[in-house]
């Protein structure tokens, strides 16, 4: 649905201020009398706390207080679940062991806080941490996913019979039947590593308690102001209205900032109230690596049942999912893996089962992609394995099995993270696939370019992978749109922004509805003082859910404006139009009233108002989809591998994506670029590595490799498709995570293709050159 602004690539309205640094980030905020916090964190992954001696630390000049679990009394209890349990899934079992605000009696991951210091400066607070002496009794750490479930394994939570945190089995059709029908059943095992959601700006929180007004203000880099407000109020016994949460400008989120009951959230709010002084805590990079949250590792045992001609009869995937030490985010990540495994293909029989496992590692919650890419990785790898066994090309086997363009809506029979059966609302997967092959010039590469380069001794390869992205899930978001007396418009939502261009895209939606200049629309996100309802920024749902709510609120305001203007201009509503900041009679442009004047007339100060009329040109609307809108696409990569050093050079990447109607195509491109970069990290660089004692070996950017601008492919071509979603009036599907999803799959296939003569086959992601070297040595039988 194109408009003057919607569907146009206008420049981001927030950029001039961001680029010239006329904005405020959390650490820029300095309040009078502000104190600073630092955490003393556990050196052990698993240990009993015998005693903690804080006496020296308390004596350090400038220290206001040092607190351990003991000092907080009953306040120290497991935090609330951040998402509901999966009761909608038949037979699903789970145990909830949610985040402790501070370790009591026992530490369960290296980096878990055992004490918090409040001091006049962060320097002093950290000095005091050095003076805290903790006597630990080390326990054997639980680090191996599969061993963790074996009898006799040490237990992360000793009140439980095992380290099993949950179990889900879902089946459509019958795997048993598939095996009977198949000519061939191929088995593989895959390992998927653990990645950080390392935003440029880490977590941070400032809390101010006004003891006179009995009002708490929290500035926080959070992805969910509403949840943070509600959970804080509940913890402290306050009304929600006594807590206001404001997000300053944020340097990225990527998932971990969705958590609103981590130790910093729980303890700093409490202490600011107790000490009656503002407290600031800004997470440093080491803390972020050790003790914020990150994503999973998984081990998959997968089988694909196929006919000789490559037709898929069925797929069975059994996997273990690492939850880390606590599971406040329940099953979102493994459910995403499960519900994104076979999406793009016709798989009549599909059995998927997982166990969630507690380990002595950092808590696992979603990071961009949020488990989707691992379902996709497993499926794409299995297709490659099947193609290899059947002597088909990766293209041929995919083309044969893609879900056809007339299949939508397609009921998947698999329940996902929003606890309803997945429905593929719209799409055209075969066209995305063929368009990608055209963009990468697949046939020309395979038939002409590759043979020529191979003859010169060059190891060049190509890979192609399909993906889907369930986006825009419920429950709901809301928005309030208000026309001011100045004729400008404010739209506020409970959603938060971490750089996604909401200040532009939401404004585009509003401007089109109200006929104002897009620069005259001010978007307020992430401030509970302006809008107090909503769920949060996750699952690529901003523009789809909050954007739609904004659209609906703007439409209501439009109706109000037309109704009032019709009376004032003495013309029927159908003859009026909103444009250039006025409501006018379409055929008589001189007959108009400015929107601002109309807003003032809608808010009379004296006199009477017609019964049933709401004042002002203002409206609130909420939108909650019955199920999420599914975006999809395809990616291809051409790369070259140095056959001696195994260094990989990405020559060209092509991606075709379908997110329905893009509100701002340029912003969509940006989301895809960023996602791709994260996917490249996943495929090639990023890896949180724990040793056998549960110690994180990659706690800085020196060891944890993050893709840089120079690590992007030499050439990147994007293609867009638009199959509008029937779920919302603008036809939108989300796009925030798309780029991150297909890269590891396409990358693995392309490297295998480049090294085809070695017969190498990869069963994992993060294919560093050393790892490729080892795989090649193994393939050679060395």
């Amino acid at each position, binding site marked *: 649905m194109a408009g003057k602004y919607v569907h146009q690539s206008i420049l981001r309205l927030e950029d001039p201020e961001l680029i010239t640094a006329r904005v405020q980030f959390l650490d820029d905020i300095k309040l009078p009398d502000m104190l600073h916090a630092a955490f003393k964190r556990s050196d052990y992954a698993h240990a009993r706390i015998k005693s903690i001696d804080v006496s020296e630390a308390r004596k350090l000049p400038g220290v206001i207080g040092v607190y351990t679990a003991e000092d907080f009394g009953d306040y120290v209890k497991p935090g609330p679940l951040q998402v509901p349990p999966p009761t909608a899934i038949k037979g699903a079992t789970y145990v909830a062991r949610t985040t402790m605000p501070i370790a009591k009696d026992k530490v369960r991951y290296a980096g878990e806080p055992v004490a918090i210091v409040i001091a006049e400066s*962060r320097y002093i607070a*950290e000095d005091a941490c050095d003076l805290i002496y903790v006597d630990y009794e080390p326990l054997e750490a639980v680090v191996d996913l599969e061993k963790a479930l074996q009898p006799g394994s040490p237990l992360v939570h000793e009140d439980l019979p095992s380290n099993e945190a949950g179990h889900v089995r879902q089946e459509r059709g019958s795997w048993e039947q598939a095996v009977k029908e198949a000519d061939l059943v191929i088995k593989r095992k895959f390992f998927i590593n653990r990645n950080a959601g390392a935003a440029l700006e880490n977590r941070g929180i400032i809390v101010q308690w006004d003891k006179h007004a009995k009002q708490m203000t929290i500035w926080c880099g959070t992805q969910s102001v509403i949840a943070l407000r509600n959970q804080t109020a509940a913890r402290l016994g306050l009304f929600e209205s006594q807590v206001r949460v404001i997000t300053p400008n944020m340097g990225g989120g990527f998932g971990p900032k969705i958590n609103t009951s981590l130790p910093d959230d729980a303890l700093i709010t409490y202490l600011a109230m107790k000490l009656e002084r503002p407290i600031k805590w800004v997470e440093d990079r080491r803390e972020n690596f050790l003790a914020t949250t990150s994503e999973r590792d998984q081990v998959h045992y997968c089988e694909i049942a196929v006919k000789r001609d490559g037709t898929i009869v069925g797929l069975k995937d059994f996997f273990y999912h690492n939850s880390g030490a606590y599971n406040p985010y329940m099953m979102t990540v493994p459910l995403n893996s499960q519900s994104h495994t076979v999406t793009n293909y016709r798989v009549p029989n599909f059995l998927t089962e997982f166990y969630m496992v507690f380990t002595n590692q950092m808590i696992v919650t979603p990071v961009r992609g949020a488990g989707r890419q691992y379902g996709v990785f497993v499926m794409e790898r299995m297709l490659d394995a099947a193609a290899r066994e059947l002597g088909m090309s990766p293209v041929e086997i995919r083309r044969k099995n893609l879900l056809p363009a007339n299949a939508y809506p397609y009921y998947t029979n698999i329940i996902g993270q929003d606890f309803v059966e997945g429905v593929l609302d719209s799409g055209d997967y075969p066209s995305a696939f063929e368009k990608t092959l055209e963009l990468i010039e697949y046939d020309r590469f395979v038939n002409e370019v590759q043979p020529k380069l191979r003859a010169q001794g060059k190891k060049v390869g190509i890979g192609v992978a399909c993906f889907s992205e369930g986006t825009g899930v419920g429950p709901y978001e809301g928005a309030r749109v208000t026309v001011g007396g100045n004729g400008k418009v404010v739209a506020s939502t409970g959603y938060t922004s971490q750089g996604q261009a909401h200040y532009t895209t939401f404004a585009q939606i509003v401007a089109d509805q109200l006929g104002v200049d897009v620069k005259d629309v001010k978007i307020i996100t992430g401030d509970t003082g302006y809008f107090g309802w909503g769920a949060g920024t996750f699952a690529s749902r901003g523009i789809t859910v909050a954007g739609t709510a904004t659209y609906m609120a703007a439409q209501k305001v439009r109706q109000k404006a037309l109704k009032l203007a019709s009376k004032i201009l003495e013309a029927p509503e159908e003859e009026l139009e909103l444009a250039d900041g006025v409501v006018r009679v379409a055929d008589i442009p001189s007959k108009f009233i400015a929107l601002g004047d109309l807003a003032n007339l809608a808010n009379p100060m004296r006199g009477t108002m017609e019964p049933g009329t709401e004042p002002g040109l203002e409206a609130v609307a909420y939108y909650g989809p019955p199920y999420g809108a599914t975006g999809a696409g395809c990616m291809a990569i051409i790369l070259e591998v140095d056959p001696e*050093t195994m260094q990989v050079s990405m020559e060209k990447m092509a991606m075709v994506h379908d997110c329905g109607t893009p509100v701002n195509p340029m912003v969509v491109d940006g989301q895809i670029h960023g996602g791709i970069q994260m996917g490249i990290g996943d495929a090639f660089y990023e890896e949180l590595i724990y040793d056998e004692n549960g110690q994180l070996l990659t706690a800085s950017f*020196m060891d944890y*490799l993050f893709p*840089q601008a*120079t690590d992007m492919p030499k050439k990147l071509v994007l293609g867009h498709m638009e199959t509008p979603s029937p779920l919302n009036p603008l036809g939108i599907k989300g796009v925030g995570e798309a780029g991150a999803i297909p890269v590891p799959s396409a990358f693995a296939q392309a490297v295998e293709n480049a090294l085809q003569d070695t017969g190498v086959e990869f069963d994992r992601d993060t294919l560093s050159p*050393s790892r490729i070297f*080892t795989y090649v*040595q193994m393939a050679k039988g060395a």
Partner: protein
Amino acid sequence: MKPAPFEYYAPTSVEEALATLQNLGYDGKVLAGGQSLIPAMNFRMARPAALVDLNKIKELFYIKPTDDGGLAIGTMTRDSVVEKDPLVAERFPIVPYVVKHIAHPQIRNRGTFGGAIAHADPAAQIPALSVALQARFLVRKQGGERWVNAEEFFMGPFMTVLEPEEMLAEVALPPMAKGSGASYQQVSRQKGGYAQAAVISVVVVDENKRCKDARVVLFSVGETPILSQAARKILMGNLPTPEAIAEVAEKISKEEVDPGTDIHGTAEYRRHLVKVLVRRGLTEAFERAK
């Protein structure tokens, strides 16, 4: 990630700096560009009692030609200045090429030529470069000075012959011999990242193209920069044939380096890289030698 408390001195002359270092003894630590020391302090892995900051000493920032055709580089000369200096490029083309591989422009704008040498990170480029180019270091202390050859300077990871009261003041590079050629080969996970294996090769050939000298220095694969003995032994006086070069590469990778397994690569892979990089480096250096 805030450093532990420390005292801070910012002398404005070398004399003042040396007097301060003399007074502080083991408590003192020289701060040059700070690109390694400050992060280490922020992690509280380094906890010097006092820092002696050389950034205000103007007399330590220079690149001067020497009469013999070499160069004298003041210890505080920023990496980015060395990288872009036309005289350096003219007399030692290998130097800017190697320096470009150090981290990122922002870091090279602060990092110093002498600081990298005194810090002696076994994965750093400049210490190895100084060994390859037969640099000499002017080491000063209050009331005295001495010259140390690069080959004798590095004792182990982050360890040098410098005494607590001493300071590296100048790096002297003797001129490149006639008929010399150089090459730099490195493999790192990312542009600007630490090398998993790297080799600087400086060779000299006579008018018959026979090898007169071969300084092959490996780093990131041992505790200090490693000057290969095998390269000289095999190549000196001989034609640098592909077979001879392959033999050197084989011998170095098997006998002269000691890479460990770390999170980014196995020892086996890194040993293999050494073989590949030595072969590529020597081949390129001999091609360039004239």
